[in-house]
Structures are given as structure tokens and as C-alpha cells.
């Protein structure tokens, strides 16, 4: 019961935050609502007993990436951004894409009620508490089975770092 309430609370906040992110005229407000949405997502991770991801979401996503966003928003001239139209065009395209997506997933779930392939009843599958809520587990798996992806990710970050520096560096 408590679990459910927490889930609904967080997901409501997440969805509301997401909608406001996309619709706000002021970019800083957008960023604030995105932060709200991300924090709510972190809450859902916690509700899923993924504690490590919860804190990574807060430290990296909210504390790192979003700070970067806010920083850049302040650097670029905001007044220009505020004045213009929110939604450029492609309203219909957007509607179409989202409807199609929703229909696709909905249809899939509706028609089968099962996960494709494995036959788990999707809408009602409640897992037993198999997963120990443990950051050690994540770490072990990260450094054993997924060592190569981990290294690749770090190379990716390095590349991104260099790229960002080169991009942002003023041409003297």
C-alpha cells in the first residue's frame, strides 16, 4: 500500500514535471521542472530498490548535468529565448508520432497482455524480492561482466570531455 502511494506520488510528479518542462516558455523554468522530473525519477528508482542508481541519478544527473544546463542557459542571452514562440511547428507531426507510439505499445500490451518472447504477464507480473538492494551487486557486475562496456563508457566520457572543451573554447 505504502509502496503504491509512493509510486503514484513520484510518477505524478515526474509526469507533471516533464509536461511543464516541455511547455514552459522560460528556459530556466523548464530546467527547474526537468530537475523536478529527474528527482521524481530518482524516487522511483528508490522505490524499485535501486539505491545506487538513485544516488547516481541525483549526483550525476541532477547535480552534474543539470548544473551544466543551468549554467549554459545563463551564459546564452535569455531575453531572446523568452520572447519567441514556444512551439515552432510540426505540431501535427508531434501528435502523430506520439499517437503512433502510444498506439503501438498499447496495442501490443492490449493484444497479448504479455511480454513479447518470454510470456510474462506484463500488467500483473509482481516479482519476488529477488534482487538484494545493494550497491555492491551493481559494482561487482559492473567490474566483472560489464568491464568492457564500462571501459568504453569511460573512453566515451573522455572523448566527450575533450570535445566539449574544443567546442566551447573561444577562438583566439
Amino acid at each position, binding site marked *: 500500500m505504502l509502496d503504491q502511494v509512493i509510486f503514484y506520488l513520484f510518477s505524478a510528479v515526474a509526469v507533471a514535471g516533464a509536461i511543464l518542462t516541455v511547455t514552459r516558455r522560460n528556459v530556466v523554468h523548464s530546467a527547474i521542472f526537468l530537475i523536478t522530473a529527474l528527482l521524481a525519477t530518482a524516487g522511483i528508482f528508490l522505490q524499485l530498490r*535501486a539505491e545506487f542508481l538513485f544516488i547516481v541519478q541525483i549526483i550525476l544527473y541532477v547535480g552534474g548535468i543539470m548544473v551544466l544546463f543551468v549554467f549554459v542557459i545563463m551564459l546564452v542571452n535569455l531575453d531572446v529565448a523568452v520572447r519567441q514562440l514556444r512551439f*515552432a511547428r510540426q505540431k501535427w507531426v508531434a501528435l502523430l508520432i506520439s499517437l503512433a507510439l502510444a498506439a503501438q505499445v498499447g496495442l501490443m*500490451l492490449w493484444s497479448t497482455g504479455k511480454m513479447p518472447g518470454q510470456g510474462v504477464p506484463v500488467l500483473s507480473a509482481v516479482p519476488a524480492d529477488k534482487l538484494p538492494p545493494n550497491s555492491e551487486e551493481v559494482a561487482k557486475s559492473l567490474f566483472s561482466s560489464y568491464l568492457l562496456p564500462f571501459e568504453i563508457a569511460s573512453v566515451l566520457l573522455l572523448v566527450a570531455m575533450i570535445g566539449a572543451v574544443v567546442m566551447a573554447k573561444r577562438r583566439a
Partner: protein
Amino acid sequence: MLPIGHYLFLGLALFIIGVIGVVTRRNVIVILMSIELILNAVNINLVAFSRLYGDVAGQVFALFIIADAAAEAAVGLGIIIAFFRNRETVLEDEMDLLKW
């Protein structure tokens, strides 16, 4: 934990909102933020399935996605700064030159 469907629908909702944001907004920064939303939607699904199957692989992949998001944000914002410096705009439909 709730039935997995709840999480899937939450993920779907965030994903669609993100897509709408990417397609309709003009401001590149907001577009980037919408992409973050999409990535988050995926993360929710991954973590939910990880819990469903009792396998941490999903969480590990969510971690990779977060790392990827960081990289993407850094480069994306770097491009925005470089672009803004040259063209004084952050609007996507004014980015109409391949070279400047």
C-alpha cells in the same frame, strides 16, 4: 513492487512527452532537455525489468545510459555555446547554415 505495467506506462508517458518536446520546441536547449527525458524513460524501464528479473544487468545499463547522457549533454551544450557565440541564437530553425 507494483506490477511491471505501471512502470512501463510511466516510461511510455515520459518518452512521449520527451518526443513531443524534441519535435516541437524551437529552443535547442529545451530539445536537449527533452532528450534527457527520453533517456530517463528508458532508464525507468530498464530498472523496472532489472527488478522484475532480479538481475542487476538492467541497473548497470541504466548507469551506462546516465554516463552517455552526461557525455551527450557536455558535447551538446558545447556545440550550443560555440553556435551561440557565432550566430547569437539558440533556435533550431535559425541554424540553417552548414558552415559559418
